[in-house]
């Protein structure tokens, strides 16, 4: 356990707020300017920042993040460059905010699990989210990450049976990422009615904080969910705002959602 993530949730809780986990794509529109986007997320109130690393075949992502991945790859984004050019600069500007890498397992495999874990920790990365690596496949990778002090954050889905969801939660590192809808990333007008029950179940079983993600884009949605979760993840809505109107728009969106998370 890196501990940084737990502290960030604790700080939000002490302020009487749910945590905002904010996602943006490294390298969109290019590596240097994406640093400004990540900084803006923190200025807007993000408690944890997810640093997206582009993959050519993002099967868990909807059109908005697919588009960002394509732009980032065109701009020359790679995991190595993100760890060398983006992560250290964001850490320098926002030293308090834990950074979590979100990418697909093939990108990590290509670098090498050990090499990634070591480099990530050295550069100040606290955790990683790999949406195509379910628990059955994650054993050796997680042991490597544990040894380096990088949290492998698990995901739990609406289709996950109860006992499996509890097992995932009990064994979690960092936080549990509860996927709110059966589907890919992207904004949804409505979230499933049984989401709050699902969050309560996972939260009861989990020793670490639980957040809801996928589909969340408004302060109202954040307010509703914050009664049942320790925080929310916002991704596509931020990526779209940053792409259309730049870092200040992403900052404003974070501030707006953060208002919904005040208890």
């Amino acid at each position, binding site marked *: 356990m890196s501990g940084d993530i737990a502290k960030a949730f604790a700080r939000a809780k002490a302020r009487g707020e749910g945590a905002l986990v904010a996602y943006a794509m490294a390298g969109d529109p290019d590596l240097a300017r994406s640093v400004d986007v990540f900084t803006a997320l923190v200025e807007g109130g993000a408690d944890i920042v997810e640093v997206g690393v582009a*993959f*050519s*075949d*993002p*099967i*868990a*992502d*909807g*059109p908005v993040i*697919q588009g960002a991945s*394509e732009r980032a*790859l065109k701009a020359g984004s*790679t*995991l*190595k460059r993100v760890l060398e050019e983006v992560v250290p600069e964001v850490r320098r500007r926002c030293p308090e905010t834990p950074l979590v890498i979100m990418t*697909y*397992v*093939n*990108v*990590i*495999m*290509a*670098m090498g699990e050990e090499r990634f874990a070591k480099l990530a920790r050295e550069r100040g990365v606290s955790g990683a989210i790999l*949406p*195509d*690596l*379910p628990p*059955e*496949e994650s054993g050796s990778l997680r042991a490597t990450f544990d040894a380096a002090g990088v949290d492998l954050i*698990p*995901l*739990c*889905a*609406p*289709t*996950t*049976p109860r006992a*499996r969801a509890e097992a*995932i939660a009990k064994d979690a590192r960092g936080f549990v990422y509860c*996927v709110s*809808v*059966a*589907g*890919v990333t992207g904004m949804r007008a409505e979230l499933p009615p049984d989401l709050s029950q699902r969050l309560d179940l996972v939260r009861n079983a989990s020793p670490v904080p639980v957040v809801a993600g996928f589909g969340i884009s408004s302060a109202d949605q954040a307010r509703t969910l914050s009664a049942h979760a320790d925080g929310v993840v916002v991704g596509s809505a931020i990526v779209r705002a940053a792409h259309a109107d730049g870092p200040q728009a992403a900052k404003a969106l974070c501030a707006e959602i953060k208002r919904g998370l005040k208890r």
Partner: protein
Amino acid sequence: MNTETAAGRFGRFGGRYVPETLVPALMELEEAYAAARADPTFDAEVARVLREFVGRPTTLTPARRLTEAWGGAHVWLKREDLAHTGAHKINNTVGQVLLALRMGKKRIIAETGAGQHGVATATACALFGLPCEVYMGALDVERQALNVFRMRALGAVVRPVESGSRTLKDAMNEAMRTWVSQVSDTHYVIGSAAGPHPYPTVVRDFQAIIGKELRTQAQAAFGKLPDAIVACVGGGSNAIGVLHPFIGDASVRLIGVEAGGHGLDSGQHGASLTLGSEGVLHGSRSLVLQDGDGQIQEAHSISAGLDYPGVGPELAHLAKTGRMEVRTATDDEALAAFYEVARMEGILPALETSHAFARGRELARELGVGRYLVINCSGRGDKDVATISARGVPPAVGVKA
């Protein structure tokens, strides 16, 4: 003989690398498939449809003129081009759609490259009355107009995919994304012996009918097992289907032929067994064409069915362990083989299949006179006539124009 070393693993390859939302569905499929296989009525139903509707068994044809021209082993052809819809793909779609019905699924989705798997899925869905949606790269929609029409005629909806390289790999991405959002009532019919566990096993088992028939037919035709069997390899469903029943027969050489595209040095090919490295694509660990940063590269082949940067995990294992030999054939070699087979044997093979034929002469000569070489004639070439004729037709033989 089974090369599965653990559930869903073939040596280092295989597994289930998918979003958590899909894991329960894959577990459900694995259980339902095991239950179906344990139920003799299921196998009987699959066999009945293959016999009455698909036209199995497909024949084993002696290729007399090729044998003579090549001057080596006796050449025989396993005629999957004669199966209904014109390729081996129907063997798998019939099995999977029957499985989906057994599981109570209400609709079917599929991905397709050249359109053969899409047509075979649409056909099985029409036969059993299930709605069908086929995801197809927008580029493939443009270049495979005949098969797009066939799917629509059969009542399927063809959904062009505009992302990425707009080909098979992107169609598979989109089909998986769709499945994630509709997983409770939908079965995803994967066409290749690839994808997350249990798909590589399910597809292989349904396609193994090719090799099982061949065992019996070879004994009847020439009194022994073949000395070598050759098949083209894209994702690898026809190859694993014809080769798998012979893995335990040490006397039988197993040979896969990959797409050499514009040549292995050109960087434009589909040779993932020959030049790929270990990686995860579309839910399983296998050999893939990728750059040093783990980004999947675009494949190239004149045949849309071999235009894929990955390969099924069991074939990767068979290649890595040396049980299967791997060769390649370029676009030009495949085209030359297409005309050679057309004019020597009266068969228009698919461009995919033409890759296997392209290595036929050298294999027949290596084996030598008196030996037996079987080429898996995986599909017919009607779908490819636009691609092939665009390059001009060689003059007729023996007749003045």
